[in-house]
């Protein structure tokens, strides 16, 4: 919960968090090492100095640390835990759903867990998706389209197999599809980060919401254009948001483009924990004001209402979170303890 100077409470749902194990013990090969090293470079490059972690903590942190970083030191009220397998890089997967579920069991009112599917897994994958949907009551999945699997280096949302999985997801009530693009989609001569396949499936699956992580970066330009034409396409702010510290000028331009093309109802805050932590991200975001020249140029404003939507109300809508009921649940243990 963030409280403004005027005492207003802002309910915060963190749209993108990870409980990963990137430690050397879990790495299968050099790719596993390079994957977590790349994340650590994002962390080191964009975090304020006082929030830099040692590499060992970054590679693998425990549940208590994560809980405290998000909800005790940070302002998150709830967080969505994404599942990412990367089974070709990590022995037990990078952050598998069982690991996420253990976290959820420890803090049931805090976490929403999302599953994952890989269209290349065929019937076995569909069976797994059905089982996961039932066991974990999934409302969302995270898709990492550049995941390596044997000889394959990735897939597109427009592949026929992807359609089968999206149809099944819709049947199972999984309505939020978080999409993370990566650099190795075949064929390699094409632009791997192309977001055109999002446009296609968003049109075909009107009952699903597509939350594009990192706002389509490094293709923010194409993403804005697609998202403005599709009512069910959202932007996740991870990676863009931390620029608020090192490069507030760039952040101002990016958020103003997003507000201009998508609007304040279509943007979701995400810390991308453990790459970044909610405390500093939210303090800076709440204190941030668009410079006059940018606001004038784009005609948008980042009002308190817009911030409330981005930090929680939009995610609450997508994930059917009743905020006042949730507040009661979160208050209950405190009341019981006092």
């Amino acid at each position, binding site marked *: 919960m963030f409280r403004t100077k005027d005492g207003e409470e802002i309910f915060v749902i963190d749209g993108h968090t990870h409980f990963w194990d990137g430690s050397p013990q879990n790495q299968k090969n050099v790719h596993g090492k390079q994957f977590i090293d790349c994340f650590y470079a994002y962390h080191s490059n964009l975090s304020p100095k006082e929030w830099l972690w040692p590499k060992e903590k970054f590679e693998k942190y425990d549940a208590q640390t994560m809980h405290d970083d998000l909800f005790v030191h940070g302002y998150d009220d709830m967080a969505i835990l994404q599942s990412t397998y990367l089974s070709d890089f990590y022995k037990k997967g990078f952050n598998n759903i069982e690991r996420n579920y253990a976290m959820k069991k420890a803090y049931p009112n805090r976490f929403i867990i999302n599953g994952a599917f890989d269209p290349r897994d065929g019937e076995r994958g569909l069976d797994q998706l059905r089982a996961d949907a039932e066991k974990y009551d999934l409302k969302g999945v995270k898709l990492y389209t550049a995941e390596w699997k044997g000889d394959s280096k990735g897939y597109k949302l427009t592949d026929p197999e992807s359609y089968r999985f999206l149809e099944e997801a819709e049947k199972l009530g999984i309505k939020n599809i978080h999409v993370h693009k990566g650099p190795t989609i075949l064929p390699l*001569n094409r632009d791997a980060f192309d977001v055109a396949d999002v446009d296609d499936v968003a049109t075909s699956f009107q009952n699903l919401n597509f939350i594009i992580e990192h706002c389509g970066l490094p293709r923010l*330009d194409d993403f804005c254009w697609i998202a403005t034409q599709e009512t069910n396409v959202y932007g996740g702010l991870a990676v863009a948001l931390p620029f608020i510290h090192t490069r507030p000028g760039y952040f101002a331009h990016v958020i103003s483009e997003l507000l201009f093309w998508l609007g304040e109802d279509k943007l979701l805050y995400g810390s991308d924990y453990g790459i970044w932590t909610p405390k500093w991200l939210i303090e800076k975001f709440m204190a941030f004001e668009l410079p006059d020249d940018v606001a004038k140029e784009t005609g948008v404003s980042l009002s308190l209402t817009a911030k409330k939507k981005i930090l929680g109300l939009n995610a609450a809508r997508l994930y059917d979170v009743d905020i006042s009921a949730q507040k009661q649940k979160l208050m209950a243990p405190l009341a019981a303890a006092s």
Partner: protein
Amino acid sequence: MTVGGRQYEGRMSEIWDRLRHVTDPELDESVTELGFVTTVEVDAVDHVHIQFRLPTYWCAANFAFMMADDMRAAVSAVSWVSGVSVVLGEHMYADKINRGISQGQSFQEAFGSEANGDLSEVRRTFLLKAFQRRQEALLSQLLARGYRPEQLVVMSLAELEVLLVERQGQDLVGRYLERREIVGPCSPDAPAFLSVEGWRLPADGLEAYVRGLRRVGVNAEFNGALCRGLLSVRFDMTTPLPERPKMNPS
């Protein structure tokens, strides 16, 4: 200093100058200014050895290959150069790219079944984005200087070429003209400003058109800042790279 030493230095600066004109296609910035090129050496038989690196292990293979191939071509064109080797370090596809470049292979040949064609399409896509970004910078500046939309849409290339338009040290006209030929013929009386489709721009709605192009520039600036930062962290560069002020980043 010996004559040979002076000649060597001259040759080195000639090579660096050629490399400075090679761009990262995605960022539309020079590979040398981005800090990608780490080593240039000329050996006793005038063979040039170039080493470069990228901000992450995962940077897209197609762009990495394009940069390596463009560097090879740019340096090969120098008359006294007998041969060029370009070596990419610490990258998921380093082996394939280095082998492909050293054997003069196409991207398709280097990547086999992982590719289904050459790089011309992706190259054109990013040249067009670079064109849009440069056009937006120039048109915005001209509009800010009081040029009216109806004047700009009928301006010829000859009329544009004589204008001096700078922003924070960048020659906006020169940069735009470098990419103008991608969208249409460049005779002196041809329209200075065309869309990526090669169409004339409408006076009515020009500002909205320019507004639309802003996305491309914002994206590229953001990616450029991210890539510089990641490179700096990855290779622990103690001296921060010089920043060219562009979008009033604070």
